[in-house]
């Protein structure tokens, strides 16, 4: 695990960007840059990070960065990786280039899943990072395939009849692992050394690697911007966000949570779940706790832990 003194002082993701105060994604980007090991190209999907960090003629990126569109980050990364591979073979280019694709949950779980699946299947050597703030926050908080059950968004509002999103979150890592890739992991910015270590591991993987990182969003999850890291920690401590990795099919639980906090501690801090605390929707809290328990049991079993 990487130590604080190992991290480069240089900031390749600079301040002055226009992400919201307390935005988890900004912190995640800064941490990501601390894990670089050499020449790197970032491919960024349309989304919060893209629009807030590269408002022409400004940029927050001190590495080469490219944005093409929303749904095709993995495909663009495929092209870049293939180009450097052949240019090296032909002697036109002389060094390895790390390619990192960065997309939000909308760009990954929903509109970008086909391009991601294709790139994973083809085995391109790149790292894909999904920063998951659990809704389309950039367009004003609409539900995505990553939005948890019960959460209120503008397209799954806390209605009188339907209390927030009826469906459950997709298992992204399960989908990625099913492609037989060498490395996949989840992370939370509250555990910075775990995340940075995983980014480096993903870069060192020969072939595709995927990191799915929880990205607290004060605007969309609706909480005090000073609480982002606390929420990111609670996500793990309540077992809502299991932190694990899958290396060549072998699962490992990176953060053990022997005495989990009740899920409501995580939920009650976020106004996206506020309606669930009304008496008529109390059963939804139980449904969510049950989902967390079952998900944890499933992951823990895969990791060879007793849940």
């Amino acid at each position, binding site marked *: 695990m990487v130590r604080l003194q190992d991290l480069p002082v240089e900031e390749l993701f600079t301040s002055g960007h226009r992400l919201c105060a307390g935005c988890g994604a900004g912190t995640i980007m800064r941490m990501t840059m601390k894990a670089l090991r050499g020449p790197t190209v970032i*491919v960024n999907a349309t989304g919060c990070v893209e629009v807030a960090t590269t408002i022409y003629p400004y940029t927050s990126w001190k590495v080469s960065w490219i944005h093409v569109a929303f749904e095709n980050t993995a495909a663009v990364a495929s092209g870049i990786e293939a180009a450097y591979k052949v240019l090296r073979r032909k002697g036109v280019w002389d060094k390895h280039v790390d390619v990192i694709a960065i997309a939000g949950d909308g760009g990954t779980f929903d509109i970008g899943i086909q391009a991601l699946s294709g790139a994973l299947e083809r085995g391109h050597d790149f790292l894909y990072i999904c920063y998951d703030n659990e809704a389309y926050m950039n367009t004003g908080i609409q539900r995505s395939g990553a939005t948890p059950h019960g959460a209120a968004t503008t397209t799954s509002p806390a209605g009188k009849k339907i209390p927030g999103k009826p469906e459950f979150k997709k298992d992204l890592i399960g989908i990625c692992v099913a492609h037989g890739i060498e490395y996949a992991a989840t992370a939370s910015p509250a555990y910075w050394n775990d995340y940075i270590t995983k980014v480096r591991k993903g870069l060192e993987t020969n072939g595709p690697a995927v990191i799915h990182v929880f990205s607290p969003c004060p605007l969309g999850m609706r909480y005090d911007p000073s609480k982002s890291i606390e929420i990111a920690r609670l996500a793990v401590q309540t077992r809502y966000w299991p932190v694990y990795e899958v290396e060549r099919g072998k699962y490992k639980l990176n953060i053990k949570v022997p005495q989990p906090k009740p899920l409501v501690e995580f939920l009650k801090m976020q106004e996206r779940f506020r309606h669930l605390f009304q008496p008529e929707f109390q059963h939804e809290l139980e449904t969510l706790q049950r989902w967390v328990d079952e998900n944890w049991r499933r992951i823990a079993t895969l990791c060879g832990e007793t849940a």
Partner: protein
Amino acid sequence: MAKLIGLTGNEAIAYAVKQCNVDVVAAYPITPQTIMVEVLSEYVYNGEMDAEFICVESEHSAMSACIGASLAGARVFTATASQGLALMHEMLYIASGLRCPIVMGIANRALSAPINIHGDHSDMMGSRDCGWIQVYAENAQEAYDWTIQAFKIAEDPRVLLPVSVNIDGFILSHSMEGVEVLEDEEVAKFLPRRKPAISIDPDKPITIGALCLPDYYFEIKFQQVQALKESFNVIREVNREYETLSGRKYGFIETYAMDDAEAAIVCLGSTAGTAKAVARSLREEGKKVGVIKPWVYRPFPEEELIKAIGNAEALAVLDKACSFGAPFNALCSDVIATLYRYGKNVKVFNCVYGLGGRDITPNDLKLIFNDALEVAKTGIVREYVKYLGVRE
């Protein structure tokens, strides 16, 4: 010594791509283009071509991967048709907006619905405003020649725009013809390794594809307008250089028997071949007809068109695609706009033909020529838009 080999339109483009030392091909199969990617795969798998072939999972990803590879400095090719081009539509604008000199072969095919696999120009015409240079070939030879020239035009720092080389689905894509090919070394000399003006070189960090708000967006789009204008000169230069190399003369427009023509057909692609043959036989009957075939559709060669029209008094403009609800269809609209701009009073009517691959026969073209002669004589256009041979 020039080598003459038998190639279909698809194979001719693939052969040219192999000789152009392309670095990355990202493509997805679709009828009638599939053979292009099959042949390219064979070249790569047999070691005849040193390229990365990315077998993407959709045309959208094909163009996305091409954009990434092109911005990394590679010479890039892809191919598609019909629904594939439609699926790429979003990426076509980004390829030109990010100034990627990608070359794409298109075996033009009808668009659904109803589904139809045969040739018409609906696909390219549906994307004609995407900022690409668009070329239509009449036969396999032209497809081969234009593909080689396309890379040189696209990659010129004065242009930096993608180019599509269009061939009629099945009529050209699947018909074998004798194609005179250049030697590999000749092509290599004509088209040296790409020197990218801008790339995502990690040693010189750059941000590409930033968010441009109302304060900058317009200027960046205007640069594309200027680049397309500038491409006129570059296309001219490349055509001249290619003529020296190959002995084959290209330009923006090819004319046939236009010197003293009273009436003419204006059309794109393979139909021009039939039209020329029909014009020849009508000439034998003393009828003064000619053919105008734009090779380059975008940028639209207005000056050359006016020159080509000469003293003709009537034009029949053939469109192999429908611009639903528009006063005229795509090619005809451009022709009329050009005449208006140059204050030239020529009578024009529009024929929509061949949708979904319906044959256009010499007899059809003979009737159109006769109609055009009648319009030239009387100055009266009875029907501005005809739908050739359609059953109502």
